[in-house]
Every structure is written in structure tokens, then in C-alpha cells.
């Protein structure tokens, strides 16, 4: 059994045995072959037909199992995302773990006025700027759905804000193929050309089937554009157990896996070897409230299963962390988000999104974001495990200090205490000092940190030339969507 840490000696958690992974794989292949999928995209259907799939009624496609094998063979086992400077930032491989925000929440929990309100452009810019500063937030998604731009321009405007407010890599959502093409243009401007973007991708695209077993035209369109342009892509079912996927964890895995594999097949047929991130999510339907809920124990186990399947297939994995169903950043929010973050890390999920999601993803909280930044820091320390080299065993130090001595004044302590984790937000003061500092709770300290970052942190800007180019792409897009209307 491998271990969850890139350092080789950390903590690790495995959800499925090798045999269970194979059982799920075979069941998914059966679904692909016997039930098939409805694919609302002619080119994709044609690609599949020519590759040997059986097609009925024009768009019902049955996938023979050899297509799965073929796609798994050509798909790379590792994908790297780069930052805006062109440095390798996220090595999506093995059991490396990275964390980032989610996209498109409807409401912003304003940390200063405490209102729950729609997002404006300046809010998203601030939120992304905060992410730029937080050391444990490795990538960004759009966070908020913009209420103050043309609805058909939202994803483009979000991208322009993201790329100008952080150098970190992004995961993007695009309304359709045209939007994705414009986002590719903007990213290419920021990194110095399309060829450079292809070689060192700054973002990945999140596309999805409509479960159960349907592929909308726009999703496939984006998948094919991504394959052609070397933009890393996933094809991630956002299952709702008990509604769009089966209520059992295993059944949900079987169907979501089948959907992801069908996306992979189309993607690899279009461009063999193009970068693909395997994964999907599951927000089980609460049978009392009819809400699709995040981070239930079953959802966490489901992710463990999905990640084990990714390891079984030797594909990079995609998942969730740091999200909650709570309406405000309270005890429930921290309990749910922390459990998901820590379990996701132990599962070795390569790229986890939705950190800062509240209310099933309808609302976003910057307080939850900065608290999660701290939780991720703790978790990362856990993943490093226990070093047992001679220096760490410290026998010489124990001999020096001897019975009744004190390690505080020993060289070994001075040399190594900084290897340990230090809090940024957690309070380790005694009661007197805590009250002297204003008796602040963690969420109050989180708000102070947000305020301080937003007042002082300026991310590295893009050049004036890039800024102008992005402005021009947006202007042309506005014309285009205007014409369509």
C-alpha cells in the first residue's frame, strides 16, 4: 500500500480495496455497454461510432469496454497546472493534494456588513485577492456569480477578474464553447501566447454531464475544445444520490464513474494524450428537506471511493473540500468543512475545490475561507507524518538533557521547533492575554485577517498591454452576445 504523502511517510487513508475498485470498474463498464448514454453532440457521436461504439436513435451511444481500456491507455497519469509566471504550481499526480475555492455562489456573506447579498465585481476581485494572499489556497475558481454584468458575459468577466487578481492557477466554468474560446484567449494574453498556454496550462476547465447518463451539447463542445487546445479538463458528474444517481454509495460510484469514463473516451478520441482530470462529486439528497447536501459522511466516503478509482486508473483526481451546508459560518460550517478537508487530504485527492462554500454552494463565506486556510495548514502538517531519521530520533539530545533537565534550552529544540506547525488564526494565549487582546472569537479574528489582507495586499498586476488585450476580448464578446440577442 502506498502512502498519502508526497514525502512517502505521511498519513494515508484508503476507502476501497483493490478488489472493490475492480468491482465498481466492471459495473461501470456494464452500464456503459448495456445502458449507454444520450449524447447531444453530433461530432462526439460520430467519433464514437467510428471508434466502434453502437449508436441507436441518433444519439443513444453504447460503449464497448475496449473503448474504456483504450482511453485509459492514452490519458496521461499526471497533469501539471502552472501559475501566471509560468512556474509549475500544481503537480496533479500520485497523492499530492491541492485546495481551492468553488465557483458561482449566488450570495456573498459580506464579512464587514454581515449581509447576505448578491456578488458584485469588486467583491469577486477582493475575494480573489484574498486567495492570492492565503498560502494554503493553491488555485482559484470564480467564487461569486456576478450580479452587475450582462448575464451572458458572467463567466468571461469572472475570468478577467481572476487572471488580473492572482497569479495562482484557475479552474474555470464556461457557459458554452464560445466563452471557453474567449477564456483561452485571455489566458494566452496573460502568459505570452497560445503555444505557451498549451505547454504550460494556467487553468483547467470543469465540464459536466447531466446525470443520469446525458451529455448536453455545451458540455461536450467545451470538452472537445479543451482536448484540441490542450486545456486540462474533467467531466465531473455532480451527482445527487437518491435523485440523479443511486442512493447507495457504491451505486453512485458506478454511475458517476461510467459518466466520467464516457467523457474521457470522447476526450481521448478527439485528442489522444490530452490532459484529463478524473473525478466527480456527490451531494446526497436529504430526504426530509429535498436539499442536495455537501459533505455528509456518505459524500466523504464516496469521494474516497472516487479517488481510489483514480489511483486504480492512474489518473489525476478531482474532488471537494472545505464546504458546508450551514447558512452562516458557525460550528456546523467548521465541523463539516474541516472533516471534508482532512479526509480529502488523507484520501490523496489531487485537486479539491469548493473551499468557502456555504449553504450547499449557494452562498460563499470569506470567513470560512480563511479558517479553512488554517485547517489546511494543520492538515498539510499531518500529511508529512513522522520523520524517523537519526537527527529526528534525538537520542543525543535526550542524553544531553538527562533526567530532570529541560529541552527548552537545548540546541536540538532551537534547531527543530520550527519544523512544527504554527497557527495563524487559532489562539494559544492564556485567558488573561486573550481577554487583553479583545476576547475575540475565531470568526472575529478571521474578519480581522480579511480586513488586513484587503487593506494591504496587492497581487502582482498584469502589464498594461495585457490589461488592454483582455479589455478588447471582453469588448468583442459583448458585441457578439449582443448580436445574438
Amino acid at each position, binding site marked *: 500500500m502506498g502512502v498519502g504523502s508526497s514525502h512517502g511517510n505521511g498519513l494515508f487513508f484508503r476507502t476501497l480495496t483493490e478488489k472493490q475498485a475492480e468491482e465498481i470498474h466492471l459495473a461501470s463498464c456494464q452500464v456503459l455497454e448495456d445502458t449507454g448514454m444520450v449524447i447531444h453532440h453530433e461530432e462526439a457521436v460520430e467519433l464514437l461510432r467510428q471508434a466502434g461504439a453502437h449508436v441507436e436513435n441518433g444519439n443513444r451511444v453504447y460503449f464497448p469496454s475496449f473503448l474504456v481500456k483504450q482511453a485509459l491507455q492514452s490519458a496521461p497519469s499526471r497533469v501539471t497546472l502552472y501559475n501566471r509566471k509560468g512556474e509549475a504550481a500544481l503537480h496533479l499526480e500520485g497523492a499530492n493534494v491541492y485546495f481551492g475555492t468553488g465557483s458561482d455562489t*449566488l450570495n456573498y456573506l459580506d464579512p464587514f456588513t454581515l449581509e447576505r447579498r448578491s456578488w458584485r465585481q469588486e467583491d469577486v476581485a477582493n475575494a480573489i485577492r484574498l486567495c492570492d494572499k492565503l498560502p494554503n489556497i493553491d488555485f482559484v475558481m470564480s467564487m461569486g456569480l456576478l450580479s452587475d454584468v450582462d448575464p451572458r458575459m458572467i463567466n468571461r468577466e469572472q475570468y478577467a477578474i481572476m487572471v488580473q487578481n492572482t497569479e495562482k492557477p484557475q479552474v474555470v466554468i464556461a457557459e458554452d464553447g464560445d466563452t471557453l474560446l474567449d477564456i483561452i484567449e485571455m489566458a494566452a494574453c496573460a502568459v505570452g501566447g497560445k503555444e505557451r498556454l498549451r505547454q504550460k496550462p494556467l487553468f483547467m476547465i470543469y465540464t459536466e454531464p447531466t446525470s443520469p447518463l446525458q451529455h448536453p451539447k455545451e458540455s461536450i463542445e467545451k470538452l472537445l475544445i479543451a482536448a484540441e487546445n490542450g486545456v486540462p479538463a474533467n467531466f465531473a458528474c455532480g451527482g445527487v444520490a437518491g435523485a440523479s444517481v443511486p442512493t447507495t454509495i457504491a451505486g453512485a460510484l458506478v454511475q458517476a464513474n461510467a459518466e466520467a469514463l464516457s467523457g474521457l473516451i470522447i476526450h481521448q478520441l478527439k485528442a489522444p494524450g490530452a490532459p484529463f482530470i478524473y473525478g466527480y462529486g456527490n451531494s446526497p439528497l436529504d430526504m*426530509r428537506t429535498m436539499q442536495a447536501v455537501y459533505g455528509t459522511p456518505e459524500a466523504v466516503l464516496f469521494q474516497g471511493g472516487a479517488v481510489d478509482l483514480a489511483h486504480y486508473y492512474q489518473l489525476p483526481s478531482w474532488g471537494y473540500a472545505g464546504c458546508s451546508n450551514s447558512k452562516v459560518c458557525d460550528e456546523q460550517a467548521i465541523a463539516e468543512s474541516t472533516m471534508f478537508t482532512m479526509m480529502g487530504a488523507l484520501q490523496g485527492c489531487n485537486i479539491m475545490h469548493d473551499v468557502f462554500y456555504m449553504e450547499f454552494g449557494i452562498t460563499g463565506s470569506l470567513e470560512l475561507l480563511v479558517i479553512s486556510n488554517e485547517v489546511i495548514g494543520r492538515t498539510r502538517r499531518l500529511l508529512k507524518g513522522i520523520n524517523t531519521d537519526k537527527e529526528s530520533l534525538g537520542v543525543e539530545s535526550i542524553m544531553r538533557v538527562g533526567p530532570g533537565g529541560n529541552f527548552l534550552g537545548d540546541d536540538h529544540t532551537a534547531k527543530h521547533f520550527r519544523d512544527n506547525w504554527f497557527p495563524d488564526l487559532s489562539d494559544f494565549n492564556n485567558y488573561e492575554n486573550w481577554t487583553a487582546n479583545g476576547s475575540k472569537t475565531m470568526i472575529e479574528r478571521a474578519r480581522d485577517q480579511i480586513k488586513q489582507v484587503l487593506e494591504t495586499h496587492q497581487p502582482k498586476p498584469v502589464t498594461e498591454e495585457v490589461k488592454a488585450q483582455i479589455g478588447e476580448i471582453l469588448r468583442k464578446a459583448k458585441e457578439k452576445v449582443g448580436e445574438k440577442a
Partner: protein
Amino acid sequence: MSDFTSLAELVINGNYNGAKDLTQKMIDNGNDPLEIINQGLMAGMNVVGVRFKAGDMYVPEVMMSAKAMSTGIELLKPLIADKDMPTAGKVVIGTVKGDLHDIGKKLVVMMMESAGFEIIDLGVDIDPAAFVKAVKEHSPQAIGLSALLTTTMLSMKDTIEALKEEGLRDSVKVVIGGAPISQSFADEIGADGYAADAASATELCRRIIA
């Protein structure tokens, strides 16, 4: 236990095979069809409604009960004149143009049917003209528009405009729902109501149709 009580029990327990058999037996024994519905099937469903509200029954169990009720109703329908069939109202529902998502809408349909509404489900990717046509054809008291995508929710406004153009807007209530939808959006586009989830959609329709 009377047959009526037994039938109600079968509905409460979601035993649809049992409910079907007993309904047939009661028909054969010459019971009044409307009494079978009101004192047997609906009586059971009313208990289900109370238990669901109290949190003692969950939605999948309610679905099984609704299925038990409808297997009985299917047998009884031919024996009852249309105008005598008890119904809470007629609602046309669909996911708007450009949107293929229908899990949430299906939940609404199931919940409303189990509450006694007659639902005409147009499916997904329904353009304004198709809603207009359905309103003309079925004369529902309300139409329900669903969208999951922020891009497709704009089609809700187009649908309301189309109803106005055809002079149908005053004859039918328009209710909307879906993840990106809010009360303020409903107000903005001039919908009659917004429901945040399937259970409240049923309540909403009851309220605005009454």
C-alpha cells in the same frame, strides 16, 4: 379492520401491490368508487401528509405511498365521471429552453402528484411557444418553470412575455424555481410565485390556486 382502513394502511405503508389488489376486490364487492378514493386511498394519503410534515416519514416513503394510491386510482378512474374526480388543480410544468436539468423538476412533479395535483410535464428544453401551446391546450391554473443554469433562467422572462402577447397571462399563474432562482428574480420578471424546494412548491400552488 374494515376494507377502507386496510386500504388506507396499505397506502401508508407504500404497499402498491396490496393496494391494487384490495382496490380491485372492493370494486368487485360493489363499493362506491368515490368512497374507495375518499375513505381508503385519500384517507391513507392524508395520514402520510401529516407524518411527512412531522418528520416521521421521508420523501422516498411518501413516493411509495403515492404510487400505492395511484395504482388504486388507475383502477377506479374508468368508473368515475371526469368531473367527479377529486383534484387539487391542474399544473403544466417544464424546464425552460436550453436547459436539460430535470431532477428538481421531477421531484416537484412527484411531490405535487402525491398531493393530488394533476401535472402535465412537458419535459426539458421547452421554449416559450411550447409553454403557450400547452396553456392553450390544457387550460391549467398554473404553470411551473424550472431552470438550473444562470444562462437559461432568462428564458423564464421570455416565457412570461410570450404568455402576455397571447393574452393568456391573466388566465394562468406562473411559478418558478431552480437553484439560481430567487424571490427577487421572480419579482423582477413578474412571476406570481417562487418556491425554494419541492415541498414548498406544493404549498405555493395550493395557495395561489385557491
